[in-house]
C-alpha cells in the first residue's frame, strides 16, 4: 500500500455535510431538468486535470461502497488519490464493472454498451458517466442538439464543445435500452448538464458538431 502525497493534495468541501448536500442538490436538479445548465457551487480544491464541477459532483456522490473508473488522463493525475482520500471509493481498471466513470477532456469515451446497464428489476444499477467537456452553451444557434423527454416541457437546446461526433448515435442506442442504460453528466468548469437515459437527443446540424 503506497502513501499519498498529502502536501499537495487539494482539500475537500470545507463543510462536509453542507458542501455535499449543496452539490447533490445541483446534481438532482440537473437530472430532473435534462439539458439545463446547472451551476455547481462548492469550495473544494479539485485536481488540476479535471473540470472542477465534475470533481465536485463525484466528491458529493461517491462513497466507500462505490467502484469508480477514470479515463487515462485522470488515472495518471492526482485525481485518483484525491477522490479516494476524500471519499474512500474503490478505484478499478475495468470500466465494465464501474458504477461511476469519470472521463477527462479529450479522452475517448468508453463504449456505453459495455458499461453496467442495470436490469429490468434493478435499473438503478446502471452506470453514471461524468464527462469533462470544454464548453456547454444553451444559446448557440448552430451545432445545437434538440433535447426532448421527461423533465423537459417542450424542447431544450444545447451545444456541447468537446464530444465525439458519434455521441448522438451512441446515446440513441442507450436511450433505446430503457429502463436499462447509463446516465451522463457533462461538466465544464463550474456547471453541469444532466442527461438521464430517458432523454432523446437530436443533432440539428451534425456538420457543425464534427468541426
Amino acid at each position, binding site marked *: *500500500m*503506497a*502513501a*499519498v502525497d*498529502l502536501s499537495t493534495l487539494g482539500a475537500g468541501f470545507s463543510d462536509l455535510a453542507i458542501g455535499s448536500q449543496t452539490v447533490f442538490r445541483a446534481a438532482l436538479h440537473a437530472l430532473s431538468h435534462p439539458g439545463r445548465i446547472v451551476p455547481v457551487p462548492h469550495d473544494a480544491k479539485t485536481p488540476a486535470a479535471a473540470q472542477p464541477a465534475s470533481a465536485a459532483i463525484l466528491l458529493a456522490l461517491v*462513497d*466507500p461502497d462505490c467502484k469508480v473508473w477514470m479515463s487515462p488522463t485522470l488515472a495518471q493525475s492526482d485525481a485518483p488519490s484525491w477522490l*479516494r*482520500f476524500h471519499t*474512500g471509493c474503490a478505484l478499478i481498471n475495468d470500466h465494465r464493472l464501474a458504477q461511476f466513470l469519470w472521463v477527462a477532456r479529450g479522452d475517448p469515451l468508453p463504449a456505453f454498451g459495455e458499461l453496467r446497464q442495470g436490469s429490468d428489476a434493478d435499473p438503478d444499477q446502471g452506470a453514471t458517466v461524468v464527462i469533462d467537456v470544454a464548453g456547454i452553451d444553451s444559446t448557440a444557434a448552430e451545432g445545437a442538439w434538440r433535447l426532448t423527454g421527461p423533465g423537459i416541457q417542450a424542447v431544450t437546446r444545447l451545444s456541447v464543445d468537446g464530444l465525439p461526433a458519434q455521441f448522438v448515435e451512441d446515446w440513441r442506442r442507450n436511450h433505446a435500452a430503457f429502463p436499462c442504460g447509463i446516465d451522463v453528466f457533462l461538466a465544464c468548469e463550474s456547471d453541469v448538464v444532466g442527461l438521464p437515459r430517458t432523454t432523446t437527443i437530436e443533432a440539428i446540424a451534425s456538420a457543425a458538431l464534427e468541426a
Partner: protein
Amino acid sequence: MYVAVKGGEAAIVNSYDLLAQQRRGDVATPELSVTQIQQQLKLAVDRVMTEGSVYDPELAALAIKQSSGDLVEAIFLLRAYRATLPRLGTTRPIATERMALDRRISATFKDLPGGQVLGPTYDYTQRLLDFSLLANDASVAPERAPLPANIDQSDNTTFTPRVVDLLNREGLIEVQTPPAGDPAPTDITREPLRFPADRATRLQNLARGDEGFLLAMAYSTQRGYSHSHPFVGEIRFGSVEVEIEPEELGFPISIGDIEITECEMVNQFAGSKTEPPQFTRGYGLAFGHSERKAMAMSLVDRALRAEELGEAIEAPAQMQEFVLSHSDSLEASGFVQHLKLPHYVDFQSELELVRKMRSSAPTNHTDGLDTAG
C-alpha cells in the same frame, strides 16, 4: 399482521413524560451521571458494547442511562446510533497474544508459564449480600495484598502466547492457521446472513448475540444436546492494541487500546475420516470484561463446527439456522414486541372465523363449557 392506526399523539407525548419521570425516579435522590455508570456499572457497559457491537464506553453508559438500565433496550439504542455513523475502514486483526493481561486462567494446564492471574473476578466471592455497600461512602481504599515473591515485574504487554498453543507439544490439539490468502471475512452488518455460514460469519453473529440465548445454548451442549466434553484451555481479560493502516500513510499505526475477554475451549474429538483423534477448539471473544459471554460463545462456536468436523447434527446448538437466526436480541425483541402493535383487523377476521367454526360445529362440543368450574 399489524395495521396502521391514527390518533393518540397527546397520549404518546404524555407517555414520554411519564417515561422520563420513571427514569429519573425520586428527584430528592441525586441524578445518576453517565460517568458514574461508566465507572461503576462496568460489566453492564461491557455487555452493551459487546452486543451493541460498538466499542465506546461512554455511548454504552449513555444508552444504559437512557434505557433505565434495560440492557436489551440499551443495545438497541447503541445499534441505532451506530447506523448514523460512516464506516471509516477496518482494523488489522487484533493480536490477542500481545494483550496487556489483567486476568488469565486455565482449567486444563495448572502450570501456566507466568502463573494463573486471577484479576478482578466474582469467582471466589461468597454470594452473600454485602450490606456495607448500603452505606453511601463505602469507598474505602482496598487493602493491598502482599506482593507475591518472584513477581514478574517485566512489561506484560510483551508476547504472552496462548496457553493451548504453548502446551501443545504432543500435537494432540488442533493447530489453527489462516486459510490460504487470508480472505477478508463477510460482514453481516452489510451482507444478509446466508446458509451455510462459514466460521467467520458465525463468529461475528455470536459475538453480537444475546448473552442469555448463547448461555442457554452452551448449557444445552453440556447437558447432552451434542456430544461435548469441554475444558477451558484459557480465559484472558485485558487490553489489546488497535492498529489500522490508513492508505494515505502507507504504514500501520496504533490508535488506542480496547479491553477484551478471550476464551479458548478445548473439546475431545474422536476423529473423522480426515482427522486423527485430537482435541478441537471453540473460540469466544467479546468487548470489555464479558467472561460468561465469551465462554458461552466458545461452546456454541465449537458445537456449530459439527458439520466441518463430520459430526452428526442432532442438537439445536449444532444447527446453524437455529442458532444464528435467533441469537440477535434486537431481532428477537423486535419480533416478539411487535405483537403489542395494533392487530385489531387481523384479530377481527380470526374472531369471525372462530364464530363461524363454532356455529357449524356440533352443539355438544359446547356442553362442557356450561358445566365447567
